[in-house]
């Protein structure tokens, strides 16, 4: 792990945010550089709040954010950040009476792509990228949930953003679509900064070179997926019986129990940890505190 403060694309320092008595973020600091960063955390961990702050939609109660060296609090610099941003909020409604292409065209204008020809090219490009060409003239109200999610991702990709913030982008996608999505993100040209939040540890393992685990409004881990998995090394066992002493136990597809804990169950076999194991162990530890 190297410290790369001077040239970090996105830097957050000491971010805190409260909603009434609830502390959504508590002194969060992190830096993001090009490539894909996965943000893991349970519901209520503060992922959405953090992403909305990075997307200049929300303001922190305390702390600072710098995006490409620009300060979102500065009214003059904020639009410049937004010109380089693609954002998919967690819960996105749609203008249901718009067609797919019409909606993307509309969003493209909001992203200041005002030249008609260029806008048409952009819309065609993202439609193709998300496999929505045949749905271009379909009204949004006629789309399934998965197609709408793809449309949400498509709008975020408009304008080839330098910073792509995707809040749970794989929610609602079927396995095939998730695979395609991973492929899409991995193949985006221009090496943008991508940060995505998800519950799916396998998504993180598959496409994210960097992982940040956010628990109870605090950053508990930052590193590679391998490093996250490694945090559970020597503490994951497979056994035929459930062990009550384990921190976490669940039955796997092979009908064997997988245990995460400090003590090996009787007759258990030590297995290689996964990203999910590491994440679960961190969650458990944070909960125990």
């Amino acid at each position, binding site marked *: 792990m190297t410290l790369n403060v001077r*040239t970090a694309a996105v830097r957050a320092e000491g971010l805190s945010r409260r909603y009434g008595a609830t502390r959504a973020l508590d002194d969060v600091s992190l830096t993001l*550089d090009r490539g894909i960063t996965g943000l893991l955390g349970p519901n209520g961990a503060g992922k959405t709040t953090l992403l909305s702050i990075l997307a200049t939609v929300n303001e922190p109660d305390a702390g600072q954010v710098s995006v490409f060296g620009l300060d979102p609090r500065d009214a003059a610099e904020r639009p410049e950040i937004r010109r380089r941003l693609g954002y998919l*909020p967690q819960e996105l409604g749609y*203008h249901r009476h718009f067609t797919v292409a019409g909606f993307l065209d509309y969003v493209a204008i909001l992203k*200041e*792509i005002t030249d008609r020809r260029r806008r048409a090219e952009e819309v065609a490009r993202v439609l193709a990228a998300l496999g929505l060409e045949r749905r271009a003239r379909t009204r949004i109200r006629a789309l399934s949930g998965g197609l709408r999610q793809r449309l949400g991702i498509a709008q975020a990709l408009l304008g080839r953003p330098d910073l792509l913030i995707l809040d749970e982008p794989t929610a609602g996608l079927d396995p095939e679509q998730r695979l395609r999505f991973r492929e899409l993100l991995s193949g985006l040209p221009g090496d943008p900064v991508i940060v995505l939040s998800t519950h799916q540890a396998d998504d993180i393992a598959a496409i994210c070179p960097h992982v940040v685990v956010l628990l109870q409004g605090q950053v508990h881990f930052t590193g*590679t997926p391998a490093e996250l998995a490694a945090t559970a090394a020597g503490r994951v066992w497979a056994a035929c019986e459930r062990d009550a002493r384990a921190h976490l136990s669940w039955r796997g597809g092979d009908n064997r129990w997988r245990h995460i804990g400090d003590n090996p169950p009787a007759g258990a076999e030590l297995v290689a940890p996964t990203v999910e194991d590491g994440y679960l162990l961190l969650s458990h530890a944070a909960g125990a505190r």
Partner: protein
Amino acid sequence: MTTTDGGPALPGADVPTRARDHGGGVAAARAPRLRTVLALGRVEASLLARSLLVLAGLLAGGAVVWWSLGPAEPLWWNADWRIGSGQLVLGMAVLAAAQLAAGRAPRNAMGDLYASFPATAGTRTLAHLFSLVGAAPASLLLIAAATALVQLRGPIGAPSIVALAGGVLLVIAAGAAGVAIGARFPHPLAGVLGALVLFLSSGQSHLPWAAGAWLYPWASFSDQFPVLPGPLAGYPPAAAHAVELAGLAALAGIVALAVTVRGARARGWLAAAGIVAVAVTCLAGAVQLRPIPTADLNHLVSEVADPASAQRCTTASQVRYCLYPGFGRQLPSLEAPVDGVLAHLPARPAQPLTVRQVATLSLPDATLTHGHPNRQVSRWDARVQRAPGMNGAAPASAIYLPVGSWPAAGSQLADAHFDLALAAAGWAVRIPPQAIGTPGGQVFLPCVPLGQAREAIAIWLAILATHPPPSGLQAGLGTGTGIFGTEVRNTFVRTWNYPGMFDSYLMPPGGGPQYTAAGYLLAHAMTNLPEQKVSHVLTDAWGKWLNWHTTDAQLAAALGIRMPSVSTRVTLPSGKTVTPGPGNGPQAPLCTT
């Protein structure tokens, strides 16, 4: 602080702005805000123009214009304002549609996404305001359709561009109000309520409507445009009202921007613009409240009280037609039925006939005379009360046509032609046209040419002159379960209501004699005879037939036909038949001159 692996630094990541090629980032190609406003405005304008709400508003507005113009005389100084009433309905729809558009993002849970775009809320609001040009085609279409309707009917006067433009401004102002409402209240009900307020602000029953009526977005009250003999400057104060509407539109736009724009400097500009808009609106309001100049009202009252001083008279076939300036194109429509009667007349009366327009101005009227002393208004009122036709009567040699009541086309025009022909025939056979006062002097009743030969002759002449559809004539007899009647000398007399009798085509409305069912039936029988035969009988003893003592039975006998019988029996819903007896109502006088 935590860190992530950085890898090679993002090229130029620490450079706030930089030029990029197309492949490197389209978003970074910064479009001027104005271009975003125009592009977004174009899309929103297209959505607004294709909105079902606006389409419905256009249809409803068209229906209002159609209904309010009705079959009446197409006077442009009346039509101008009626078209605006249609624009008010369209404006309500545009308000609701604009509110829906402006509140679309928060209503569809897209507030967070929109907040991440470089186009700010202020830019979007500006685009929504710009998009109101999308409502202009609907407004202009309404004007075009209404204009075509008026033009097709043979318009009197010329359209007021300012009054018509006021209608367009009304639609734009309503749309701007919709944007302002939508920017703050995205719920669809807010737009509906806004449209309702706009509608109620233009009603008449619940609002004071003296001079201040002009300050409402579009006053839809019982004005006197349709009875004016010509346009009256300042009634309505169209130019000032258009300025007021423009001021209100600007004010609504400023409020919409104030809700969405951030930044002290922008708000400062908005405050300054708001002050200017308020000042312009108030100034326009003050101008509208100015009284109509005394000289103009004096002129109007003179035109009404003494039509001859203003009218131009034309003589055709020895009949004088006296019309207000601008109404000359109606002359052929008036001449046709009168000439039709004259063509079948054996001899003319000694007194020549004059067909004259009269204006039925009603005073006092606060929207007309506001700002003038009561004494002055009373003097005007006294003069107007002495105007021809205002006492409910017309001289025997004159037929009065109220301004604004002569239909332009359709069955109403046919009825009006018949009414005029019947009035001319009444003059020809010397049936007194005026109503006769009762002993109390409060009620005027038309006289009844009961059993008189001249009654059937008058009706026969009118039928020959205009050839009305027989069904319309027959309907005037009533049916077996409902007949018309009056009392003459304590006897129930079945009457005949001719087509258009109560439609005020002539002055006084329904004036002239009350014709009887027997008279009509004899006239109808006469139409079945060879015209030459009837003419011969009439010509032989024209003076005799005009005598009120000569009976219809004598005429029937001279023509060699049986006098038609008239039943006065009525079948009640129970199936029982009864004959109405004498009641306690006023007795209709017999036409005895």
